[in-house]
C-alpha cells in the first residue's frame, strides 16, 4: 500500500509530467488560458491515461513479452491510444451530450499528447504490476491536471498584469512554468 502511495505521489508531484518530464506541453501552453477548459482537458487526460495504461499493460506483459515481440511496443501503444480516444469520444457523445460538449474538442488532441504515450512507456519500462501501473497512471493524470489548473489560474491573472511587450503571451508562460517547477522541487523530500 505504502509503495502504491509513493508511486502515486512520485508521478503526480515529484516527477510531475509537465514540469520535470516536459510531457504534454502542447496542451499546457495551448489550453491553459482558462480554468474551466484546463480542468475539462485534465479530466479527459486522466480517463484516457488510465484506460491506455490498463490496456497497454495487458498487451505488453501478456502478449508482446511472452511472444518476444516487445520491439513492436511503439507501434502497438500508439494504435491503442488512438483507437481508445476514438472509442471514448464516440461513447461520451452517445451517452452524455453535456459532457461531450465540454470535453469534445480536447479528445482528438489527446491522441498526439505525449503525456499519454509517455505514461505507457514509463510503466512498461519500470516493470510495474497491474495495480502499480494504475497508481502511476492516475498519479500522472492528477499531476497533469493539477499543474494545468494552477497554470490557468495564474494566466487568468496575468492577463491583467503589465508585462514587457516582448514577454507577453508565451514567453512569460515559460517563466511562470519555471517558477512552478521550482516550487514543485520542494515535493522532492516527500517520499
Amino acid at each position, binding site marked *: 500500500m505504502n509503495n502504491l502511495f509513493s508511486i502515486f505521489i512520485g508521478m503526480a508531484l515529484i516527477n510531475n509530467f509537465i514540469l520535470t518530464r516536459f510531457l504534454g506541453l502542447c496542451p499546457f501552453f495551448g489550453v491553459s488560458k482558462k480554468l474551466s477548459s484546463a480542468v475539462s482537458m485534465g479530466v479527459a487526460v486522466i480517463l484516457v491515461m488510465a484506460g491506455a495504461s490498463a490496456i497497454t499493460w495487458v498487451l505488453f506483459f501478456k502478449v508482446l513479452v511472452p511472444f518476444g515481440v516487445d520491439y513492436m511496443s511503439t507501434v502497438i501503444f500508439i494504435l491503442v491510444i488512438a483507437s481508445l480516444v476514438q472509442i471514448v469520444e464516440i461513447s461520451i457523445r452517445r451517452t452524455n451530450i453535456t459532457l461531450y460538449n465540454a470535453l469534445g474538442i480536447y479528445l482528438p488532441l489527446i491522441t498526439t499528447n505525449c503525456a499519454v504515450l509517455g505514461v505507457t512507456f514509463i510503466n512498461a519500462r519500470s516493470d510495474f504490476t497491474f495495480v502499480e501501473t494504475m497508481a502511476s497512471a492516475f498519479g500522472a493524470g492528477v499531476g497533469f491536471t493539477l499543474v494545468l489548473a494552477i497554470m490557468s489560474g495564474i494566466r487568468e491573472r496575468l492577463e491583467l498584469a503589465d508585462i514587457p511587450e516582448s514577454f507577453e503571451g*508565451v514567453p512569460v508562460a515559460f517563466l511562470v512554468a519555471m517558477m512552478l517547477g521550482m516550487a514543485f522541487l520542494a515535493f522532492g523530500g516527500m517520499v
Partner: protein
Amino acid sequence: MNKFVDYFRNGIMESNPVLVLLLGLCPALAVSTSIDNGLGMTAAVLFVLLFANIIISLIRDFIPARVRIPVFIVIIATLVTIVDLSMQAFLPDLSKSLGIYIPLIVVNCIILGRAEAFASKHKLTESIADALGMVVGFGIALLLISMFRQLFGTGKLSIFGLQFLRVPGLAENPMAIFILPMGAFLVLGVLLAAFRYMGVVSGE
C-alpha cells in the same frame, strides 16, 4: 529551384517549429541538457521526418483521405522503432540519456504536422526540402537551448567529449538550475522574448 530554397528557408525562419510554431517542445526542452543530447535528438528527428515525408509524399495518392491519419501514424511509428533499435544497438550511451524521448518522437507534433500539412499535398522533392528545412530549424533551436543550458549549468562547453570552452569561476560553481528541468523553461522563455525584441520572431 527557387521554390526549394523557399521551402527550406521556411522551416528555419518563418515557421521554425520550436521558436515560432512552438511545436515539438517536449523533446526540445527535455533533452537539451547538453549539446550532445541535442545533436542526437536532431539526428533522430532528421531520420524520421525525412523518411516520413518521402514515404508519405510517394504514396499520397493511394491513401484514402478518411484513414490517412492512422496510416501516417503507423508509418511514423515504424520509422521511430527503427531509430530506437538502431540507437540502442550502436549508440547505447546516447540512447540511455535520451531515454523515452526517442520513442516519443511518434507523437512529436512536428512530424505528424508536416505529414498532414505538407507531404500529403506536395511532390517528393518539395517534401524533402521541407523536411530538411524543418530539421535544420529544429536543430538550430535545440542547439541554442542546449548551448545556454550547458554553458551556465556546467560552466563548460563540449561536443562529444571535446571541451572547447571553460569559464573560470563558473565551472567551479555552476548554476545548477540550468541543468534542472526548470532551466529549460527559463532559457526558452528568455530566448523567445529576446527574438521578439530583436524582431526575428513576431508575436502572436
